[in-house]
């Protein structure tokens, strides 16, 4: 309870001396990367710890690193009792790991004693005890003021001394004595049978902490594992943890101790492809998220990743590119062909490549290397290209658990990561199902095969926490980068390549035709109007002509009428006849009146 992982600093910052992670059980930090995390602070302080493992599993190195780190990092001098290797061999063996035993010995931080006994010299003549060993340890402890002791393969005594009964009881006495002296002790033991921890069963004397180291070969690839078999009075990780021995000693990788408590930044970063950002809610990817770009061979996965890296470097962010398939030079050359020049970023130190075939080491080697590179370079963007290559060195199960750890680690560090993944054609979504659940954003790249050609298309299959386009988009690799094209939909879905081009042309033709037709109509209308107007002018002229004639006729006949009336009046006046009958007939009557 007290040593909850969340409260612990990350693996790169080692706690000062031994912090009391538990109230009940004080612990001594080993300084071995990752081990303190899974043990919740280190080995039980002042008590013996048994480290058991087969030949070549790293027991001696474990012990030595425990002492060297104790002496150099925590101010706790140590004593190394070697029952197998000579002092000069030991010194030489660990010099490659950067441990300078001679210097530590000269500085009185370390005391190395080689206990060498050869059976042939001995004859047993009566009762004996191992007081000689006790005295040597006690003297060594006193000389350097040691707080830590390593007994490297104590069980060698069984092979070299007569009367195993005495050796057993003396070893039991030794453990009690070490405990009484409050020395934090590591006792290594050889494990030669899978059902036993040690050859001579000395684990029964060590009740506090037992660590098992394992070096196994599976499918020709070696993997190292560490497991805490028991740890009395303390919670601890119970899984098998992969570990690696490299030029910096042992690194143990916690599998799940990181937990799911990373921050979720709302900040968005560009994917390096403007229109892809557009598809992702217009703002790009979340910082610290993990992105999977999966697709069949040749769909442009690496290119997508390179665009992303390029954009990050432009922002001034650091980027780390894990290339499991191509050499850095090859990637730089290939990307230059599409107008992305990564070389300046490499020169400026913003971009680092790490290229290696994963088959070079085991899966944990890859994982630990990844961790180490990330921890030392502190990038804000990481590319793993491609994750599927890891499947070559391990089982699906292990790759998934490794990726889980890697993704958790990256998220804790707030690093945005693109994983590319090569999928078999035909099983695009299914084959990724296990990996994809770890990812926040999944870009699916595919080749659309239509009309005798293959064209690249991209769509966002999922993107947690943002609105995103649901459209399949075609993209092309041009001289100046990767470009997403406009969408052309045809009867069979998105049109790509020449189908798209012909569709584009067809659409252009239709537009032209329409424009021309419109023009024609407009002209016809104009013509009609002109005809109409011309006709109107003519009609008007005709009408006017007619009107004139009619007017003329009217005025003529009016004139004529007046003359007739006048004449008739004259006549009436002159005749003076029938005046009453004329009255009834209106005009005729009036006229005569006038």
């Amino acid at each position, binding site marked *: 309870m007290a040593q909850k992982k969340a409260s612990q600093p990350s693996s790169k910052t080692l706690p000062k001396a031994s912090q009391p992670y538990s109230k009940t059980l004080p612990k001594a930090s080993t300084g071995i990367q990752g081990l303190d995390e899974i043990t919740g602070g280190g080995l039980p302080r002042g008590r013996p710890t048994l480290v058991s493992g087969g030949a070549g599993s790293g027991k001696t190195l474990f012990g030595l690193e425990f002492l060297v780190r104790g002496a150099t990092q925590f101010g706790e001098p140590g004593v190394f009792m070697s029952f197998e290797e000579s002092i000069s061999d030991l010194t030489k063996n660990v010099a490659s790991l950067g441990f300078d035993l001679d210097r530590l010995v000269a500085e009185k931080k370390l005391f190395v*004693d080689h*206990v*060498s*006994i050869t059976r042939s*010299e*001995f*004859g*047993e*003549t*009566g*009762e*004996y*005890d*191992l*007081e*000689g*060993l006790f*005295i*040597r340890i*006690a*003297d060594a402890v006193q000389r350097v003021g040691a707080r830590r002791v390593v007994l490297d393969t104590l069980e060698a*005594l069984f092979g070299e*001394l*007569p009367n195993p009964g005495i050796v057993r009881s003396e070893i039991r006495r030794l453990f009690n004595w070490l405990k009484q002296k409050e020395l934090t002790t590591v006792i290594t033991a050889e494990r030669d049978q899978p059902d036993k921890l040690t050859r001579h069963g000395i684990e029964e004397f060590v009740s506090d902490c037992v660590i098992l180291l394992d070096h196994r070969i599976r499918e020709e690839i070696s993997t190292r594992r560490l497991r805490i078999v028991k740890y009395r009075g303390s919670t601890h990780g119970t899984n098998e943890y992969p570990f690696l021995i490299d030029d910096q000693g042992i690194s143990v990788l916690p599998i799940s101790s990181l937990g799911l408590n990373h921050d979720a930044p709302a900040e968005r970063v560009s994917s390096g492809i403007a229109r892809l950002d557009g598809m992702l809610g217009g703002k790009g990817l979340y910082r610290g998220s993990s992105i999977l770009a999966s697709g069949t061979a040749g769909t442009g996965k690496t290119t997508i990743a390179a665009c992303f890296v390029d954009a990050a470097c432009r922002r001034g962010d650091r980027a780390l590119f894990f290339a499991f398939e191509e050499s850095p030079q090859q990637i730089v050359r290939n990307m230059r062909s599409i107008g992305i020049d990564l070389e300046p970023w490499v020169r400026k130190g913003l971009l680092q490549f790490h290229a290696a075939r994963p088959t070079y080491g085991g899966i944990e080697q890859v994982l630990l290397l990844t961790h180490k590179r990330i921890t030392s370079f502190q990038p804000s963007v990481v590319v793993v290209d491609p994750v599927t290559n890891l499947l070559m060195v391990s089982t699906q199960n292990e790759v998934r658990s490794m990726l889980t750890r890697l993704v958790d680690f990256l998220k804790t560090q707030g690093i945005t990561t693109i994983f590319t993944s090569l999928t078999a054609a035909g099983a695009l979504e299914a084959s990724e199902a296990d990996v994809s659940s770890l990812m926040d954003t999944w870009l699916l790249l595919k080749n659309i095969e239509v009309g005798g050609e293959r064209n690249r298309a991209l769509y966002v299959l999922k993107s947690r926490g943002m609105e995103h386009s649901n459209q399949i988009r075609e993209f092309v690799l041009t001289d100046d980068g990767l470009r997403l094209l406009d969408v052309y939909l045809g009867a069979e879905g998105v049109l790509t390549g020449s189908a798209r081009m012909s569709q584009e042309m067809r659409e252009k033709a239709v537009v032209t035709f329409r424009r021309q037709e419109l023009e024609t109509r407009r002209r016809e209308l104009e013509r009609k109007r002109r005809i109409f107007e011309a006709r109107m002018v003519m009609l008007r002229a005709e009408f006017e002509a007619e009107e004139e004639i009619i007017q003329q006729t009217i005025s003529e006949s009016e004139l004529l009428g007046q003359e007739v009336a006048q004449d008739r009046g004259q006549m009436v006046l002159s005749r003076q006849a029938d005046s009453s009958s004329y009255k009834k007939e209106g005009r005729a009557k009036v006229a005569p009146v006038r």
Partner: protein
Amino acid sequence: MKNSPKKSVPAGKRKSELAGELEQSGSNSRQAKYVLRLYVSGSTSKSALAIENIKRICEQHLKHRYDLEVIDIYQQPSLAREEQIVAVPTLIKRFPPPLRRLIGDLSNVKKVLFGLDLGMRQ
């Protein structure tokens, strides 16, 4: 075992090797002198017993031709390291060769004599 290896060792070689260590105690100069070191730890009963046993054996079998030194490794822990002492008591026969190391309290006289190449004599 043969009882004559002491004789076969040339005196000159012996001298040069062990000049500092040899103490003149011998009466019988023709027989090689035994150089024995007994490493014990303090005054435990096992230590006392071992000292008692080796003294008796020497007196019985190597009278006047042995050099026995008893070393308490509590007093000189670095000697324990140099001599690769793990179990105590340990008796080291330095001379004559071959070098022999006998562990235990030396109560098994037969084994002790055997280890000191004195087995046949008894």
